[in-house]
């Protein structure tokens, strides 16, 4: 019980620090800590398979991607004021969290039935087979999207100086 309270408190602190940190790299590291603690909570809930995936993908792969992107894009300090006034955003957050709690809490207080003994692999591959197809499609979409986005559309600068359209040699020949 005390362990769970401690994990939840540290998770929320990590999540808040990830947003408060001025440097993007520090923010990515706080996010990795949040992911690792969420994975620990999931493991304590009795779901070790997803905990391992969350730890390796959420805390590992995504953090590496963040560091890679920050290295390419560079650090940038933006003005502290946000587009939406802070009191308004706090109000919106409190209202949305209260609404979420209001709608979910009655459904979260049930029953505790006997645990289902269906194995994880059977659930994933037989009952939720469509989800697996969707995941494969999502991964391909993501790869194609990233390849399309990261390609540099600027023309290569092989043309001689003063003739950026690449006809430098032909024009020089005509001038002669």
């Amino acid at each position, binding site marked *: 019980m005390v362990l769970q309270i401690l994990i939840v408190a540290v998770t929320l602190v990590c999540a808040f620090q990830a947003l408060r940190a001025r440097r993007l790299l520090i923010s990515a590291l706080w996010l990795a800590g949040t992911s690792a603690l969420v994975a620990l909570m999931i493991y304590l809930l009795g779901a070790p398979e997803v905990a391992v995936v969350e730890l390796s993908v959420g805390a590992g792969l995504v953090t590496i991607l963040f560091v890679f992107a920050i290295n390419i894009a560079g650090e940038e300090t933006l003005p502290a004021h946000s*587009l939406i006034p802070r009191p308004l955003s706090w109000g919106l957050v409190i209202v949305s*969290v209260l609404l979420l709690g209001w709608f979910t809490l009655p459904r979260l207080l049930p029953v505790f039935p006997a645990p289902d003994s269906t194995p994880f692999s059977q659930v994933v591959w037989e009952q939720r087979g469509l989800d697996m197809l969707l995941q494969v499609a999502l991964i391909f979409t993501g790869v194609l*999207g990233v390849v399309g986005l990261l390609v540099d559309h600027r023309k290569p600068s092989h043309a001689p100086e003063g003739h950026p359209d690449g006809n430098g040699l032909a024009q020089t020949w005509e001038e002669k």
Partner: protein
Amino acid sequence: MSLSILRILVIAVLGLVGVGFYGLLISRNLIKVVVALQILVKGVLLALVAAGSMQGQVNLGQSMALTVIVADTVVAVVGLALAVQMRRHCGTLDIQALTSLRR
């Protein structure tokens, strides 16, 4: 799972979703927006596994959480690639630079 642990989990889920939503509202940096989205999805992930665990169908919850992890990773990758391209073309990561209609 006892009722007190359930309360702690609900606090964790609501806290993570609230922090993520707050970050989405106040962040101007596009990479920070992706970070906020990740935090929000962590809350949803925890809610899915907790709901499955409470209903005695933890493997169903795990299966759905797996789909959410994959979708979340793809969203993060595409968001970061967008941030890199925005930095190349606009020279900044400020999302206000994208609103060309206000100029």
